[in-house]
């Protein structure tokens, strides 16, 4: 198994490979944000920030922050040439209306039906769903990017036990151990991370895995 840092880079790079030229993409806070650093050359992707703009660029240098320009995490941000700002109803017209090609989010749990839980742990942590429920319902492709387990305990399950963010919406799960596609027959293991065995993946997964006949090593 890869160490934490190499695992995170692997996830970000592998997710980046899923993006196509011209895609409109929304990246969640945390690990998903790092996907922006690894967009393949020759591919032009437009990032959408649900607080109200497209053309999300890198964080500004210290001293160059614009107090009126933040990303959906509330952090100072930048807007690339050709970007556009709008209000929250237009932002979610874009999201819920199917105009986002891919959304990349973290998860607390994801299951073999493509159910996703990532917005609360009852009695413990209730940050709220923010824009996540709309993103997961509205985006054409929903990619979960996360560490395969939470300190050893399963996050990929037969059935989510935490309150759902949305039902049946996840398309692809990219972790530090594997790439798994959600199909109508269940979870299809398509790729395994370097330095990782099939047994390790199976053990770290709380649901049945269908092994792709063309199982590969994750390449980034």
């Amino acid at each position, binding site marked *: 198994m890869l160490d934490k840092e190499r695992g995170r880079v692997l996830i970000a790079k592998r997710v980046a490979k899923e993006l196509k030229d011209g895609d409109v993409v929304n990246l969640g806070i945390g690990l998903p944000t790092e996907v922006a650093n690894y967009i393949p050359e020759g591919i032009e992707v437009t990032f959408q920030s649900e607080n109200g703009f497209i053309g999300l660029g890198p964080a500004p240098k210290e001293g160059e922050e614009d107090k009126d320009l933040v990303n959906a995490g509330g952090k100072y941000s930048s*807007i690339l040439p050709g970007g556009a700002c709008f209000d929250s109803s237009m932002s979610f017209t874009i999201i819920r209306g199917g105009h986002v090609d891919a959304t990349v989010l973290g998860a607390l749990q994801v299951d073999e039906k493509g159910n996703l839980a990532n917005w609360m742990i009852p009695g413990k942590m*209730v940050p*709220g769903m*923010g*824009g996540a429920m709309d993103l997961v319902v509205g985006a054409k492709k929903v990619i979960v990017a996360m560490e395969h387990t939470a300190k050893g305990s399963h996050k990929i399950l037969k059935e989510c036990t935490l309150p759902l963010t949305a*039902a049946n919406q996840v398309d692809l799960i990219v972790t530090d151990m594997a790439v798994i596609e959600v199909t109508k027959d269940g979870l299809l293991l398509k790729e395994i991370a370097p330095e990782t065995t099939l047994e390790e993946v199976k053990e770290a997964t709380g649901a049945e895995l269908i092994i792709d006949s063309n199982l590969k090593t994750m390449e980034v």
Partner: protein
Amino acid sequence: MNKFRTVDEVLDLIKDGQTIMFGGFLGNGTAESIVDAIVKKGVKDITLICNDTAFPDRGVGKLIVNKQVKKAIVSHIGTNPETGRQMNSGELEVELVPQGTLAERVRAAGAGLGGVLTPTGLGTVVAEGKEIIEIDGKQYLLEKPLKADIAIVFGSVVDKKGNIWYNKTTRNFNPLIATAADVVIVEAEKLVEVGEIEPENVMTPHIFVDYIVRRAE
């Protein structure tokens, strides 16, 4: 029609128990001077409608910390630990609404629509107790409009009639709440003459704005 008021004058309109909408996303684009004045006045039992509860020391988060809010209708509370604490202790009621649904519910109230039909929240706790309407074989949640007594808008550039232009990401919920309240107050960061905002670039037409307050320096 002179819409100019001092902060003290508009504070007279803001009373205990009212429903108040604020623009702003994690404090970005919130009328900070008016928030400060409400904190100072100590208005109580507010039903707060905003995207989030911002931070303890910023935006509407200050109203939470000062225990002026009875109920918060928001999409996110994770950046203000005090919101979660008051929610868990039962001091504060929190209605969590998906962000896109929140935006549409406010817009529906402003646009005279009876509700919002959205796929967002189906199969989740958000759907509990709500009507599901089937349209051409697909299910949608019926979400109701959200209106307020007062909307407190932040405007980057405001002309003397009350037309508003929002800079960068300060726009967020501001144009929506401006349509959905009985009284609309805008805190102007920069005040300009009528005509300085091109008619096409006006983002909130002046007819929605009742009062203009200048942002404190």
